[in-house]
């Protein structure tokens, strides 16, 4: 009888009998070895504005070649991409796109970055890693769009090849992660700290879900954790929830809740706090933390004005952290 195989990619540590798949639905034990079923088989490929990731301090107004495969290691009740993230690869329409083709298509389409996104790229780790290596050799920036529920060893192997990560910090309590996402908070916090230490440019997103994580104390705790562990310069995006998937009965996040969250973040000492999914809100803009002047004026994903020159405020020459060129 062949042995049970343990996947050590994410913190679920799924133990699989022969023929079984992990919670991600894409990693399988065949003949006593673990295999990925989605290497080079994305089901979703698009060219997006980088602001959609959301990344507001990375190559503004540039295009990002974005891809995902089926599957996910989380079970978020609010998932916006549940049609692919909660499906096995047999139930999605996949295309053959090996790493070389991803890089070639990104370059041909004048994209400056490749985003591993939509579902969680942790579950197509091998595909992402090989693509990221090639992309970096070709001068492209790699974007890791993730919930960061990944073990330390694979994350450390990945970090040298990803220049930026857009991380969903979904909440700040273990209860929220368990009930809402079938995951755990502490490993996510550790992964975020690892990426920060490794020099990966980080932007965090917190989706505010009415009645679930919209209490002021939760928002204060989240902002304090970021300030204490990552410093004031890591951008934080408060994103508007829209009724989806298993939470269709909830209302969208009220605009005033997001505005209040932004106030709390700024009061906590964070320099760059944004409001997402409300196109014309002033919280879409970047302001200089020193002189308060408007640096980047955005409406939705469009950049209307950019007053950052060589990574500095045009008016007072304060350094604005990010990857600007």
């Amino acid at each position, binding site marked *: 009888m062949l*042995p*049970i*195989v*343990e*996947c*050590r*990619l994410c913190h679920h540590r799924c*133990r699989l*009998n*022969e*023929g*079984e798949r992990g919670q991600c639905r894409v*990693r*399988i034990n*065949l*003949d006593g*070895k*673990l*295999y*990925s*079923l*989605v*290497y*080079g*088989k994305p089901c979703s490929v698009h060219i997006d504005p980088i602001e959609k990731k959301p990344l507001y301090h990375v190559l503004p107004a540039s295009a990002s070649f974005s891809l995902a495969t089926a599957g996910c290691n989380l079970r978020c009740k609010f998932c916006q991409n549940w049609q692919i993230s909660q499906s096995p*690869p*047999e139930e999605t329409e*996949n295309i053959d796109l090996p790493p070389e083709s991803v890089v070639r298509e990104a370059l041909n389409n004048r994209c400056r970055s490749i985003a591993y996104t939509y579902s969680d790229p942790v579950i197509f*780790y*091998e*595909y992402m*890693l090989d693509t990221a290596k090639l992309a970096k050799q070709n001068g492209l920036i790699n974007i890791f769009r993730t919930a960061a529920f990944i*073990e330390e*060893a*694979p994350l450390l192997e990945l970090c040298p090849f990803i220049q930026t990560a857009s991380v969903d910090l979904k909440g700040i309590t273990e209860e929220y992660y368990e009930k809402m996402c079938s995951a755990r908070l502490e490993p996510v916090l550790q992964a975020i700290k690892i990426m920060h230490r490794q020099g990966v440019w980080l932007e965090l997103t917190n989706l505010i879900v009415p009645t679930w994580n919209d209490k002021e104390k939760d928002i204060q705790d989240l902002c304090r954790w970021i300030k204490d562990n990552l410093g004031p310069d890591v951008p934080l995006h408060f994103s508007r929830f829209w009724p989806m998937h298993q939470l269709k009965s909830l209302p969208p996040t009220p605009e005033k809740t997001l505005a209040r969250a932004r106030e709390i973040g700024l009061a906590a000492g964070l320099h760059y706090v944004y409001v997402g999914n409300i196109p014309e809100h002033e919280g879409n803009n970047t302001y200089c933390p020193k002189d308060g002047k408007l640096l980047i004026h955005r409406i939705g994903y469009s950049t209307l004005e950019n007053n950052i020159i060589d990574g500095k405020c045009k008016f007072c020459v304060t350094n604005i952290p990010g990857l600007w060129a």
Partner: protein
Amino acid sequence: MTNTTKSGDKLLIVLLVLIVLMMGQIMKENVASIRMAVLANGAKPKVDVDKVKAQLRQAGLKPYEAQYWGIPGAQPQKD
């Protein structure tokens, strides 16, 4: 008097039938939960791996050997 006895008997029979049905349901659920508990401890039904492989081929999926896995209790394995 006789009619009252007959209707009482009928009621009793109906009650007995209901009790038997309820007992049956409870036993069925218990057997199912015991079976699930046994299966969770490793005695899972054997998967026909050849059939799984054939289904993957049919779906156009080519298994690619994964990184970061191992055999529980053994040293960590990579590649």
